[in-house]
């Protein structure tokens, strides 16, 4: 069950690589949050109820519902439809995505061999998510895409931490979540400001400060 879920999580990335409508990204993001929630429900058993409740809160409520909803409203408000032409075209992006997938699975196999107590598939897919999100950040130009990609990065890291299954103290978890939440909130605030102050809302307009 968890294997299927995790493959599904990987395919969301492919979807994002191929799509060019911003709203589609947000939907993929919501899907990722939901899948993470399901993963926790299915896979994780031996943890305290408070931590469990917390994880549910984090994945389903925040990652799956609140943040996507929040971002969607921003996108609709600012009437952003499509991604502008990225540096590397859509076609090659998909090609690169498949390469990233390959690398992810190689990492998964390798991690299975190292005997370090990692869940291989979790590990591989999380690496796929992280690398893919970084690639998207570099490649895509819209600022809102960057915010979305940051969320994917966070999801990847979350998955990575699940792959290790080391329990963090609750204080840390709360802090991480708070940071994430405030971070996204700030991103959106600044995104709105940039929308106000600059005509275009892609990253090339932000190159005034240089030497």
């Amino acid at each position, binding site marked *: 069950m968890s294997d299927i879920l995790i493959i599904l999580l990987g395919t969301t990335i492919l979807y994002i690589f191929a799509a060019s409508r911003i709203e589609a990204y947000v939907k993929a993001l919501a899907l990722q949050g939901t899948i993470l929630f399901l993963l926790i429900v299915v896979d994780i058993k031996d943890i305290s109820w408070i931590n469990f409740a917390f994880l549910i809160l984090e994945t389903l409520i925040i990652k799956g519902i609140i943040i996507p909803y929040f971002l969607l409203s921003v996108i609709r408000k600012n009437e952003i439809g499509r991604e502008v032409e990225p540096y590397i075209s859509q076609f090659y992006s998909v090609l690169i995505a498949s390469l990233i997938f390959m690398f992810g699975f190689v990492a998964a196999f390798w991690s299975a061999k190292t005997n370090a107590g990692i869940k291989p598939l979790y590990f591989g897919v999380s690496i796929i998510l992280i690398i893919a999100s970084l690639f998207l950040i570099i490649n895509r130009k819209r600022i809102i895409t960057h915010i979305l990609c940051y969320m994917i990065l966070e999801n990847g890291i979350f998955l990575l931490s699940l792959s290790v299954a080391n329990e963090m103290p609750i204080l840390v978890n709360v802090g991480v979540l708070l940071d994430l939440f405030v971070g996204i909130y700030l991103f959106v605030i600044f995104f709105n400001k940039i929308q106000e102050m600059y005509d275009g809302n892609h990253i090339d307009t932000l190159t005034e*400060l*240089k030497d």
Partner: protein
Amino acid sequence: MTAILIGVILFLIGGIISIFFGEKLKKIVFLSFAAVAQFFILPQSFNILLNGGQTEAKFILSDPLGACSFRLDPLASLFVIIISTGSLLCAIYSGSYMKMYSYKKISLSTYYFFLGILSVSMLLVVIVQNALVFLIVWELMSISSFFLVIFENDKPEVLKSGLYYLISMQVGVAFLIAGFAWVSASSGSLDFNSFHSVLSNSNSFSNLIVAFFLIGFGTKAGFIPMHTWLPKAHPAAPTGVSALMSGVMIKTGIYGILRIILLYGNINSTIAYSFFSISLLTAITGIANAASQKDLKKLLAYSSVENIGIIGMGIGIGMLGIVYNNSMIAMLGFLGAILHIINHFTFKSLLFYGGGIVYLNTHTRNIDKLGGLAKYLPMTSSLFLIGSLAISGLPLFSGFISELLIYLGLARSLSINNLSINIFAILGFSGLAFTGAIALLSFTKVYGIAFLGNARTQYQEKFKEKDFSLLSPMIFLAVIIIITGLFPYLTVSLLGNILKQFLPMDSLNEFLKIQLNLQILSGYILIFTSFILFFYLIRYFLLKRKRVEYFKTWDCGYQVGSSRIQYTSSSFAQPFLSLISEIVPQNINVNKEPVLFPKEASIESNSQDFFERFLIQPNLKWLRKFLDLFSWIQSGKMQQYIIYGLIFLLFILIWILGVK
């Protein structure tokens, strides 16, 4: 020791509290503190200088400075005397000279404050025995003199020169820091005395470090190729400061070199030879450049480079004497060098002060615009003549004595049965003669063009020089020059204890021999003086009853002439400069209409410093170009910045995987 430290503190207080007094009182306040300080400093230092021994005071500072001792030995006390009197003279001179600025409503607060700091730091440099504290006061000296150099900072070129100076000093101090860091690391202590054991085990590393020290101190002193700051900084500074820097401050570099030689002990012959060669080249480069200068202060600055070279040759000969175990040669070398330090202090300060009076009255430093000043400024002119004669190393004056000693050292080295020292000695011997001849050219040029003949331009102002505070320092210095010139054994007798530090005790005999020779020389020089007087009297009596007419200069048929047709400094030096145009590259621009009979034409020539043109500027340009290659780093594109991080991360990961 307490007395010296009290003196130092008095200088410091004088500098600091002068800030709080009115513009007119500042000079008096500073001067009185400086004068009182002399009463504390001079007796004790003369005592040590004459009677030998040393006195020490120790302060415990916290880490990383540690215990810091102040020690006054004969070598240090000589420098203390020079620095202390030099600062006092500068303070006296500045009293009137700096009025020029108060007329322009420029506050003198910074001037006297930094003058105080400069004096204090110079005094401390020569007595401090803790490497780190030494570096601190050394840097303080650089920075305070920097602020004095840029006193006229409303002129952009002054600021530029000042920065050049500051950066040169940073380059120099880098070598010192590297050197002291190594020595203190290997000896485990910051005290100078502990360095002896490290430096004297003459392995290749300690030799390298000694070379570092020589380069570092040499930068301050103005050895090539690190001399290029001198001709920039000295003209930029107010005259009193130029005199103090040129006459006193650059000598702290020499002090450092001497101190290192004392600590070094086991002198390596390669270092001695290289030092000697560099000094020789310094002397020639310095004076060759001086010959080409039109700017009075720049000329004097280059002449300082020359004199530093001569001092260096003396030290080099001293080192070679130690290498070849010949205490006579070593003694002649060191004695010549140390005497030349004193001499250069006296005549260079004198010349700068004289140049300052010229500048004060004519507002130009370009000697091609001067002329005939001997009639307007008789006192200044005579004193300047004494300085010029002395700096050219002519008999009757002090410069001759020190150069003679160095010549003798070189001549003695010819009798060592070793081919390499013979060759170096003859090079030094003829090189020193060459230097002396060019010095003669340079200073006949300065004096002849600026002070003699007719005025080349109309002077605007009424001349005034009868000012006690301007003339008294010069007269004091001129008296020292003449006394040393006529009775050299008097001055030399002060230096015996310093030589004892450098040479074994049994070389006393040689010192007496030199003294004896100098006494004979003194007699002969007096004979020479009486010859001159005798013939002048003959001339006087011969002409007494004859008709002496005063008429205009023989004009060779041309009735109408402008005073501008007189020889200028550039034309005077041209025949010589054309011989050495490879060493002193000349730029000559002729502006002439390309018609058959041009109505207006002009010619302009100036020279460039060989080392600056071929060594420093190309390298700086190269460095700048190299660094500019990376200017795309900060492009303003955020994604590019993220890529840097990712590439760096990838690099580390590959590194980890590669290097297991």
